[in-house]
């Protein structure tokens, strides 16, 4: 199994298209960092709204590496599913398109082992992509903008997190984001089994993610009660839960706490459930599939 995983990783990282994803992330992150370096104050004014009329805003200290990283994640994580689908959707469909699938399946390796190796290779790719994003958005931002307290804008509240209370939250958030994007990878992987060309699974995955995200974000009571809690996209934003703090009776936030950890863990559990469901279904379908390509 380990050997199969090595082979699958070798194939992924020898394909030029894999590096498009890493390059795209680098470009996106650096563009945002440059924009904030030149005009971060405008962005801060935007998120603080009319508060600048009643509060003194320390723009220089707000614009620090932790803040920039949060802005990057907020803006860009929604686009990463496309880069994940690009590789995951190609795992089986791409082999069928190339004609190599029939060679693979006729080897003395069970279909289950083959699919597990392919899926885990996709997970490794996803994790590496997130690690790359973490390095650029966090480490590079800290290098360029320094460290200070983090201010986060929620739709109805502002949170300030002390600088000594931030790093572990980011590590947890990136780990959570990896799980969230693995869910997208698992979906693309499942759709890849049904196609003989990777464009279909890639486009289908992105379409599903977009539609579900819209349903997740819309404030329509009919969807809130029926559909929203079950959509995996509703739980993909759970990484933000690590940045919501508890407050004491006086309204002062308590360092080292998470406002609703059970909810975050529940969301994580739901995402893991979807991963098992999608990947499991992919294996079951593939085991019965006639390879005609």
């Amino acid at each position, binding site marked *: 199994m380990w050997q199969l995983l090595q082979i699958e990783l070798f194939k992924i990282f020898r394909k030029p298209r894999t590096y498009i994803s890493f390059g795209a992330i680098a470009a996106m992150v650096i563009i945002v960092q440059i924009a904030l370096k030149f005009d971060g104050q405008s962005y801060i004014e935007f998120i603080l709204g009319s508060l600048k009329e009643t509060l003194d805003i320390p723009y220089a200290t707000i614009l620090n590496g932790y803040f920039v990283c949060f802005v990057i994640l907020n803006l860009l994580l929604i686009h990463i599913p496309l880069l994940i689908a690009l590789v995951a959707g190609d795992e089986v469909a791409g082999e069928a398109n190339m004609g190599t699938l029939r060679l693979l399946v006729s080897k*003395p390796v069970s279909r289950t082992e083959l699919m597990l190796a392919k899926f885990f290779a996709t997970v490794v790719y996803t994790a590496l992509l997130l690690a790359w994003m973490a390095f650029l958005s966090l480490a590079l931002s800290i290098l360029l903008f320094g460290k200070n307290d983090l201010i986060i804008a929620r739709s109805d509240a502002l949170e300030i997190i002390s600088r000594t209370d931030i790093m572990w939250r980011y590590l947890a958030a990136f780990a959570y984001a990896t799980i969230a994007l693995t869910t997208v990878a698992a979906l693309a992987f499942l759709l890849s089994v049904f196609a003989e060309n990777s464009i279909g699974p890639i486009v289908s995955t992105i379409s599903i993610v977009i539609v579900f995200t819209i349903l997740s974000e819309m404030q329509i009571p009919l969807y809130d009660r029926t559909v929203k809690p079950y959509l995996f996209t509703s739980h993909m934003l759970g990484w933000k839960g690590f940045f919501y703090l508890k407050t004491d009776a006086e309204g002062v936030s308590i360092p080292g706490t998470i406002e609703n950890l059970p909810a975050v863990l529940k969301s994580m559990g739901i995402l893991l459930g979807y991963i098992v469901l999608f990947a499991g279904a992919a294996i079951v379908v593939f085991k019965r599939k006639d390879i005609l390509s």
Partner: protein
Amino acid sequence: MAACYETVTCSYQLNMDVINVSHLSKQFREFDAVTDLSFTVREADVYGFLGQNGAGKSTTIRMLLTLITPTAGEIELFGMNLRTHRKEILRQVGAVIERPDLYKYLSAYENLLLFAKMSGLRVQRKQLMEQLEMVGLAERAGSKVKTYSQGMKQRLGIAIALVHNPQLVILDEPVNGLDPQGIADMRNLIMHLSRHLKKTVMVSSHLLNEMEQIATRMLIIDKGKKITEGTVDELFDPAKTLVEVEVDDTKAAAEIISKSHWAARLQQVNADHLVLQLHKNQLAQLNKDLIEMNIEVTGFKSGNSLEKYFLSLTGTNQHVAAFTN
């Protein structure tokens, strides 16, 4: 050809049936691809698997390689049931399925390494280079496959099929897209595999002239069903010599012959000739009797070829167009 290296232990006994297929069927939603097919491939056979395009050859081969699940029937290879001993069986099988498609963005060496590892081998660079040397690709080992010609890809496909020293080699349409030199090379390779390396080779093809030269036993299928199976000698029985008699009026001639003692020998009535099947020794007598029956014979051809035999079994000349590459 370089000597092969014994890296996989053969666990089956000698002189047994290498492939034993009984009552194999495959139904797709739209049509029946294979119906109640049974055949046997013996050790050291060069087994010709013949049929027109769409006859069910590739479907059958894919079932042997577990790419397709049969609807019914049993498959045994090396005396083991394919369903229950899949891994052990496939370790001893090498296959080239139709056009060999490989990872174009990898080099020949990398492709070979990858598939060798998947076949369960612990490989060293030297072994792989020897394999590439054997198929004449050692100098281009580092080139990406996307720069290869069709013939080179075919040779690389063969190298991949043989890298783990399998006892059974399955070649599905191996000469497709090859030039005459390539076809000759492929023929020589198959002979070498069988005669010198003692491998069992199953070859599916629609190039009947080629198969006639190399196959020891054959299976002919049409529309998913077995038509006939046997050795070349069994198929080309002198008692079953086919004769083409060219006449001006085939209808009239057929009517006369059908009232004679040759009636049972009449196989086909075509637009410009009749086909009769008779013992080779009766040719002279037929010629004489036709003259006595006042049938104007304009041409007289006898002798069996696989193509003729095949066409006689599977249909008329209108199918010939299907065989052109």
